[in-house]
């Protein structure tokens, strides 16, 4: 795959499959996802609700809860496959190298613990022999980094607003200076003003630490501002992955095109584009392309053969038969 600026790859996901067991058969929530995350890069993972983006993130974090299970794949962090690690090794590595900014900011903090104790927990669990004074200074420094006043140190989660809680979560995520942070729709529960503040905090912290980040979300406008590359997911697969600019200027996959078109504009009042067709039963995906039931450009080939991801422009990878020929020409 592409390595535009010759940046080293921090995280590599290969053929990740996460299924949910149901009485009527497995739901193929994540069905063969591959991507690479470069050093210092922010990768946006977008797609509609239920497309598997959060599940993919949980697969990377090894936090898939039953009835879900990781069926196959590799998650290489620093060349180490997380799926091979024992529980103990995994626990050591968690948060120290790979941390999470959770989805539900409102309930992500333990209601019976003060903010400082919750941040202290991760420091105690992963760093040996840190003095009380050092921990205290570090926590205050972290709170300052995310723009929270010092008094938050002694506060309980219920005394904080939603935006403040989310910033506490950000402070907690960077406490051990991890290599990769996964932000799972971390701003979607907030109103736009707070969302902006939190997003700016996130961006600032990220720049300061040079950490790589995966941002999951469905707010295309926010994504456009925050991320370097975007991976578009549909029904458990990444259908297109490209630089933000390319995705917005010339989306290649028909689903990406629909997604970009449906971003509401402030200037013009355009009718919402309604997509034809329905999403398939996630237990029994049709043979061939997964988007065939809703695709406006569907061809015979799409119903028989699964498209392979290929580079249509430098850095823009698309899994669609419509580009098969152009690939052959090049």
């Amino acid at each position, binding site marked *: 795959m592409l390595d535009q600026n010759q940046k080293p790859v921090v995280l590599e996901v290969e053929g990740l499959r996460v299924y949910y067991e149901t009485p009527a058969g497995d739901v193929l929530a994540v069905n063969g996802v591959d991507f690479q995350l470069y050093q210092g890069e922010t990768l946006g993972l977008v797609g509609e609700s239920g497309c598997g983006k959060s599940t993919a993130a949980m697969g990377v*974090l090894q*936090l898939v*809860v039953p009835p879900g299970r990781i069926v196959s794949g590799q998650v290489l962090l620093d060349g180490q496959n997380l799926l091979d690690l024992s529980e103990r090794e*995994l*626990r*050591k*590595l*968690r*948060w*120290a190298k790979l*941390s*999470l900014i*959770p*989805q*539900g900011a*409102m*309930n*992500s*903090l*333990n*209601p*019976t*613990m003060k903010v400082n104790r919750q941040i202290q*927990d*991760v420091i105690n*669990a*992963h760093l040996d022999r840190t003095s009380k004074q050092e921990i205290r200074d570090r926590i205050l420094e972290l709170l300052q980094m995310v723009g929270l006043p010092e008094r938050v140190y002694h506060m*309980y989660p*219920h005394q904080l607003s939603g935006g403040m809680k989310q910033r506490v*979560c950000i402070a*907690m995520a960077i406490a051990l200076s991890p290599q990769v942070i996964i932000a799972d729709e971390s701003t979607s529960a907030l109103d736009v003003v707070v969302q902006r503040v939190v997003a700016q905090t996130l961006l600032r912290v990220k720049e300061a630490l040079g950490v790589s980040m995966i941002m999951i979300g469905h707010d295309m406008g926010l994504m456009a501002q925050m991320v370097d590359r975007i991976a578009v997911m549909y029904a458990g697969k990444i259908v297109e992955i490209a630089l933000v600019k390319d995705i917005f200027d010339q989306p290649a996959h028909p689903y990406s095109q629909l997604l970009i078109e449906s971003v509401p504009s402030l200037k013009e009042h355009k009718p919402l584009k309604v997509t034809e067709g329905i999403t398939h039963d996630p237990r029994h995906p049709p043979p061939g392309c997964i988007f065939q039931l809703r695709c406006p450009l569907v061809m015979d080939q799409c119903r028989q053969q699964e498209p392979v991801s290929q580079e249509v422009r430098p850095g823009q990878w698309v899994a669609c038969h419509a580009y098969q020929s152009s690939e052959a020409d090049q």
Partner: protein
Amino acid sequence: MGSLSIKALVRRLCIYFLTIWVSATVIFCIPRLAPGDPIAAMISRMSQQAGYVENSDKIIEGWRKRFGLDDTPMTQYVRYLRNLLRFDMGYSMAFFPTTVSSMVKRALPWTLGLLFVSIIVTFLLGNFLGALLAWRRTPSVVKMTIPVTMIFTSIPSFLAAIFLLYVFAFRLHLFPLRGAYGRGLQPELSWEFISSVIYHGILPVSSIVLVSFGYWALGMRGMMITVEGEDYMHLAQAKGLNPFYTLYRYMVRNAILPQVTALAISLGTMVGGQILVEYIFSYPGMGTLIFTAIRNQDFNVIQGTSFILIVTTATAVLVIDLIYPFIDPRISYANSSIEKGH
């Protein structure tokens, strides 16, 4: 940390005293509504022993006067309340001239000790087992064994008491049949006496614990499962914390909160359950006292003992209420939020 304003404290104390007043009134009414006459009952008991009691009419008349039973109910009620304020609960009618307060004074420590131990053991054991039932890492052998131990949950405590008494005291002779301490011992602070009290207390405590811990275990299990689905549990796992630390500091710590509320609510029931257990083990506590008093229609003792038990329970609930803000930081009596807690 939850805080407590003077205003909220005063309000809570008013509720406390109101509870006690209402219950004192109910206690006054109920024995007087029951059919029968305590003095006549006593005379008939005497005549059973002596064959014939001379001038029984005069005795009845004299005693009725002496106990003030001929006064109007209102006069009796006012006198009763006035005396209660001084903890003067009159004389026992069946064991005249023993005062009710001296009987209560003798019985109360035994009951409080038994209650305290059995409630603490029940609560801790029940919640511990409930937590184990819900924890994902508990070995499946343990998970299968715990429900079996709960078979006693569906029977009343006095039946469990009879069962334990029969098996462990009567058949196996492992434990004493009756009493609170060995014969010939004097209540004192010696190891011999204390060990005898513990030895005698095991069966009564067990019969209360056996029938009630399952209730706590099931409640705790439900709460644990609810807490497990919370986002902060997910994050705790992502944080790579020690699983035991996560269990008690994140899961149990939050799951136990509604259980403490339930404890305050169920205290009264637990006290009630103990009355019969005490009687079955001839334990010299309030339960035995109440039971005998009811059989003798001993108004004053019934009133006195019930009153003290109600005061005890109400005080325990008050204490739990007042410490609740310290275990759940979200609850605060700082402003007028006390009504939300009820």
